């Protein structure tokens, strides 16, 4: 019996899409070292705004890693617009739940994606209203 359910442990022990993408179309990093978790997402996005590839690196606890892993699975293959609709609730549901004190970790993935898409939007001059008001420098919710 561990702290987390089997699905979370599977994504922690065998995280999907770990690593980085060379010359990515978007990169985002959120979190900070004080809180003990940082997540970085790399995106490869094609002309149809489909997220063809996604990689992540995460510094943090088991649920941070597992949230990152499952989020990349949810995001991969979706259009940017679709992906931006993914919230931490989706991450939580897909993971089958996290301990209460760990729920904030699922927010990290949502925020990291937004940060990466913002990078992409800035580079390409696009605008996503889903990102209005989003500031990756702000401390993520705790």
């Amino acid at each position, binding site marked *: 019996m561990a702290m987390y359910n089997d699905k979370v442990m599977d994504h922690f022990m065998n995280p999907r899409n770990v690593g980085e993408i060379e010359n990515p179309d978007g990169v985002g990093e959120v979190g900070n070292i004080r809180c003990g978790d940082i997540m970085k997402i790399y995106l490869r996005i094609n002309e149809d705004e489909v997220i063809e590839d996604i990689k992540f690196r*995460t510094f*943090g606890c088991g649920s941070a890693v597992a949230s990152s892993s499952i989020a990349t699975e949810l995001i991969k293959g979706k259009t940017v617009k679709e992906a931006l609709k993914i919230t931490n609730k989706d991450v939580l549901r897909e993971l089958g739940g996290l301990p209460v*004190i760990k729920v904030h970790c699922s927010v990290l993935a949502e925020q990291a994606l937004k940060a990466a898409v913002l990078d992409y939007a800035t580079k390409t001059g696009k605008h996503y209203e889903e990102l209005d008001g989003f500031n990756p420098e702000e401390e993520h919710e*705790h």
Partner: protein
Amino acid sequence: MKRIYLDNSATTQLKPEVLDVMIEALKNHNFNAASAHSYGQEGKLDLAKARETIANFVGAEPREIYFTSGGTESDNWAVHIAKKTKKGKHMITTTVEHHAMLHTMEEAQKEGYDVTFLPVDEYGLVTAKQVEEALREDTILISILYGNNEIGTVMPIEEIGAVAKAHNILFHTDAVQAVGNVPLDLSNSTIDMMSFSAHKIYGPKGIGSLFIRKTVRPYAFIHGGAQERGYRGGTDNLPSIMGFAKACELAGENLAGHISRLTTLRDKLIHGILERVPHCKLNGHPTKRLPGNVNISFEFIEGESILLMLDMTGIAASSGSACTSGSLDPSHVLMGIGLSHEIAHGSLRMTLGDFTREEDIDYVLEKLPPIIQRLREMSPLYEEEMRKQNGNV
């Protein structure tokens, strides 16, 4: 699966002899030692015998041993005694105390006491000089952690106690981790009051003691029946007290052997890790250190992930104090010795005990380095390091 328990500072498992004593006591010595009938009188004898065994073990007189529900209550009680029997508003402690003392002192602050939390050096040490300089006219208590539960640092307790003595100030030490792990003789000591707890020395949970030297005026913290000479009410927990006594007896039989065996294993583990894993450092003092404590910070990665991966290989360890996990801040002890948040978050504590065998250490030395490496490869903080390494190729 192999299960290797390296969290002996959180709690220890009962020694078989202690278990036997407790089972027998739960069956046949489970009466009220305050009762006048034969059962009660037998209980009174059992209680006196246990108290004597424990007193002998720490070099105290039996009447100086007061039973409590554990180290936490003992710490709370010691502060209470100072408040109730001494005039003055100032107390001195350190920034690296266990929460049982830290939060008790913070509570005293709320009540209007001034508390000096002495900072420690990079090893977790305070000096007698620091204590002396912090003294005030109205200082009523000096309380210093004997052996640190997280980083294992052993304080210069008798030097600090000498300062307390010289200024006639009550001196308490939280020796929950130290008892059974350092040579100790209260009959020749500056310690006025000392907290200790059975479950850290292969005895049961929920039972501990506050040693109160006979020259110190006690004052009740938990009011009730006439137990503990009227200073701590509550039906005597005889089965646990008897288990506590057995644990003390066993610890006293071969303390030097226990210390030297654990010290050897500890140093093997420490050096084995430092040799095999780059970018890590030992927390706490290299030699003024509890014999079973290993605490190492690994750069670029976070402690809980290490724990989880270790757990999957059957190794039980902890990150910071067991008591603080569940909170998000890194431990106050690691911050207290000046670690950055990053390094503090990456700490791993492995605490050895009498059940730890050399092959367990070998197993850890085999399993831990690849885990650290795997986690680093997942870490955004490690990217730069990887690039550097790749650039160097």
